[in-house]
């Protein structure tokens, strides 16, 4: 491995901003230099630091998931009506020349009362409501990344959001609510209890929809008997495999099926509102599989929605869950193959603190391994783009389009992972041939659009600091233009690695 400064511990300020945070903005390093650990811990003490405040007028208009889903349902319904109207109109021949012959006049009488407007070229149609909501949420997330101090808590948000991922590729419902899902089910708990986050996530309409639980019906429930529909085990399996216990931790196919039964009835109220406010999370007793259920050797007595709550609470504090979460956290913040001692310590804190995620975050900061391990991981595309914005200045105001395009090109489209296991957390997934080529294109585009590039040598000092390698210094110093110098800084190993 040819990682800079592989033999000596990395610069602690660089560790604070790159390993734990989202990269330094000009001036940030000075504030953190005297006590990098304390600088990170200060973030953990700020109340509500993870929240996107709706008191801020910029975000006051961001709707919660329920109104967002309602808007999507209404738009969907309207689109359906429009399609039907179009189909009816094309089936109705030659409306425009209806006055021509008596026969055609007759057919015009049975046409709809409001004939279609003349087929002039329509103005550019407004974007669908789901796209508008998605962009507003993306903008809020990017702003938050730009404004964060070190960005450690934001990194925790991204970690948990990827751990409990949903994908907007699933459906318009998820596209409309993915941002709200992160604000409602992830952000409030990243410094809270794991069990609380788990419970909120698995009950959230976006997750119920993404992993098909709204379609899972107890075979012996009233709805199951009437409609001859039944179980869908998707959510049950992914909760155990990905969200909590981890694969290979000892559960069986029978556990998956049993858990799927337990989870039946956890659903989202539909557009008609028969089960509750449309787009809200509800328990549908009619679809819940009646009776006791055995999961991981324990019997859960029939208790309606309480049955799944009890099961989730037990799973949340299962030793396999502690081990799974500890491994993922250490892999994310320390190394692809994390030191076993670090994993063991995190697992112990998880178990002893009842899954207190603030305690886990503080443990990470206190870990000697976090400050001694070489910065060999790669920034994920979102981290990379956040770091670019923080170093080179914010992107176009109120237009997340460019950042979203970069994310797509770099292989990490926002809230659209390839599967429920989220995006990869391994360095070589991001240091791919195509990935590096696109990072180069991205760095160039970013550098070129900065209106007033300062001296790239000064920026290097401000963003990377004294531990920048002589070769990086030289490359930046000898650049043929300020833009090229800035692009070289954004491509430097010290900027890519974390």
């Amino acid at each position: 491995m040819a990682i800079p400064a592989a033999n000596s511990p990395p610069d602690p300020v660089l560790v604070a901003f790159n390993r734990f945070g989202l990269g330094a903005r000009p001036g940030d390093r000075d504030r953190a230099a005297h006590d990098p650990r304390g600088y990170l811990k200060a973030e953990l003490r700020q109340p509500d630091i993870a929240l996107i405040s709706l008191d801020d007028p910029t975000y006051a208009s961001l709707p919660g998931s329920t109104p967002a889903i309602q808007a999507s349902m209404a738009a969907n319904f309207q689109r359906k009506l429009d399609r039907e109207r179009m189909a009816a109109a094309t089936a109705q021949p030659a409306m425009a020349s209806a006055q021509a012959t008596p026969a055609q006049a007759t057919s015009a009488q049975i046409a709809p009362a409001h004939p279609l407007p003349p087929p002039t070229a329509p103005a550019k149609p407004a974007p669908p409501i789901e796209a508008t909501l998605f962009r507003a949420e993306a903008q809020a997330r990017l702003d938050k990344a730009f404004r964060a101090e070190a960005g450690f808590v934001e990194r925790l948000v991204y970690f948990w959001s990827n751990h409990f991922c949903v994908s907007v590729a699933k459906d318009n419902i998820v596209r409309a609510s993915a941002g709200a899902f992160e604000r409602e089910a992830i952000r409030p708990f990243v410094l809270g209890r794991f069990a609380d986050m788990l419970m909120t996530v698995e009950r959230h309409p976006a997750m119920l929809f993404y992993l098909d639980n709204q379609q899972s019906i107890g075979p012996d429930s009233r709805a199951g008997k009437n409609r001859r529909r039944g179980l869908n085990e998707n959510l049950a399996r992914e909760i155990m495999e990905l969200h909590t216990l981890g694969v290979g931790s000892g559960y069986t196919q029978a556990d998956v099926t049993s858990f799927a039964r337990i989870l039946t009835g956890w659903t989202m109220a539909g557009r008609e509102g028969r089960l509750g406010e449309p787009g809200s999370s509800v328990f549908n007793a009619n679809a819940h599989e009646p009776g006791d259920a055995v999961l991981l050797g324990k019997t859960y007595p029939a208790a309606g929605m309480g049955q799944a709550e009890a099961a989730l609470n037990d799973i949340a504090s299962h030793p396999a869950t502690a081990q799974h979460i500890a491994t993922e956290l250490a892999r994310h913040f320390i190394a692809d193959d994390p030191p076993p001692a670090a994993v063991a310590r995190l697992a112990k804190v998880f178990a002893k603190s009842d899954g207190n995620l603030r305690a886990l975050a503080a443990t990470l900061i206190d870990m000697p391994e976090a400050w001694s391990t070489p910065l060999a991981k790669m920034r994920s595309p979102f981290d990379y783009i956040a770091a670019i914005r923080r170093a080179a200045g914010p992107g176009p105001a109120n237009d997340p389009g460019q950042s979203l395009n970069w994310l797509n090109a770099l292989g990490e489209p926002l809230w659209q992972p390839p599967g429920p296991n989220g995006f990869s957390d391994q360095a070589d997934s991001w240091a791919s041939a195509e990935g590096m080529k696109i990072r180069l294109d991205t760095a160039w585009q970013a550098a070129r659009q900065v209106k007033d590039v300062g001296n790239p040598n000064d920026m290097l000092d401000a963003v990377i600091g004294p531990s920048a390698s002589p070769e990086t210094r030289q490359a930046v110093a000898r650049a043929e233009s300020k833009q090229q110098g800035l692009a070289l800084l954004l491509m430097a190993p010290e900027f890519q690695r974390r």
Partner: protein
Amino acid sequence: MSLLCETPHPSRRAVLMTGGALFAWAYLPRFARAADNRDPRLIVIVLRGALDGLSAVGPIGDPDYAGLHGDIALSLAGPHAALPLDGFFAVNPAMPVFARLFKDKQAAVVHAAATGYRERSHFDGQDVLESGFAGPGHVATGWLNRALESLPAGDRVATLGGLAVGPSTPLVIRGAAPVLGWAPQSLPPPAGDLAERVLDLYQHRDPVLAVALQKGLDADRMALDDQIGGNTTKPKSGAMKPKGGLGSAAGMRQAAQGAAKLIAADDGPRVAALAFDGWDTHANEGGATGRLATLLGGLDGAFEEFEKGLGERWKDTAIVAITEFGRTAQINGSVGTDHGTGTVVLLAGGAIKGGRIIADWPGLKPAQLYEQRDLAPTSDVRAVLKGLLADQFGLSAAVLADKVFPESAAAKPMRDLIA
């Protein structure tokens, strides 16, 4: 319907080896193809998410199929009739290209196939499928890369290396052998000599990134050269803009289009890996139409693009589409299917000895299903892949069982897949 297995037949070359070289003999590739002007290529498409083999190639002759697959079962009747392959199996009507190739004996199906993995986790299943190891937990190298690595030094196929399509490298082709990465171009390329400068910096400070970036630039240059007639400075505007990810039908077609150009080149890679996402159809899977059919249409489009783009080289090409496992034989409570076991392997290409369904059909009665829920596997996916590698590149059964698919000696290479 028959299972084709390898019968050992030592070559004349082996007989001429001096005594005591039995071990070495076992590792020697066969160069039977070297003289006949063939220039074999192998394209591996990984379908991530677990393809429902019973909806891709439906056993419509099986009396239990329609009952189990319910509303989404394929049928020869109705407006979206499946396309019959033989008297027993029919392919999804979203795949007319595959059906045509099958008729022309350039496509084949291996049915009721699975890797050695018998749990139902996507991610472990994919790791097993792509790593080629007997169980999960090996994520450093993939079998396709180790196959390249196992070719003798200086071998043309090994020298030309592999091609990985998409922004990240699929595990199946990760490893020590050289791999080119390519994905559709989407951003304006940097001006001046920025790329050279960054490369120079990486060569001094971060060789891993240097190798990755160099490969990315090379692949881009090759794809652009072909696209715009050798002028690399000004890409055609709008050319090869990404059309959605590799989980969309248009994205699959486009990935194949670009990959075909690179693979068709005389000095282009001879093996390639693509990963298409989105096959995890738990709910509202659809049958002859709908969600799965749309994806199958994308895969069919990829076959078509390869056929078109490879031109002359199509006759030397084998494409194999594989997935981590199948799905439940019976549809679930939401007109989809949950994670299962046996599924299909689809083979296409001018090099394929096609027009055949290779299956030791296990039947779909409750007692015939694996764990009473899944299509029981009767063929090993590794046997299919080993057969392709043996016949396309001359890798020996011993190398295949040792290095490429460790601990797989029991799954003998399925020979005779290549015409």
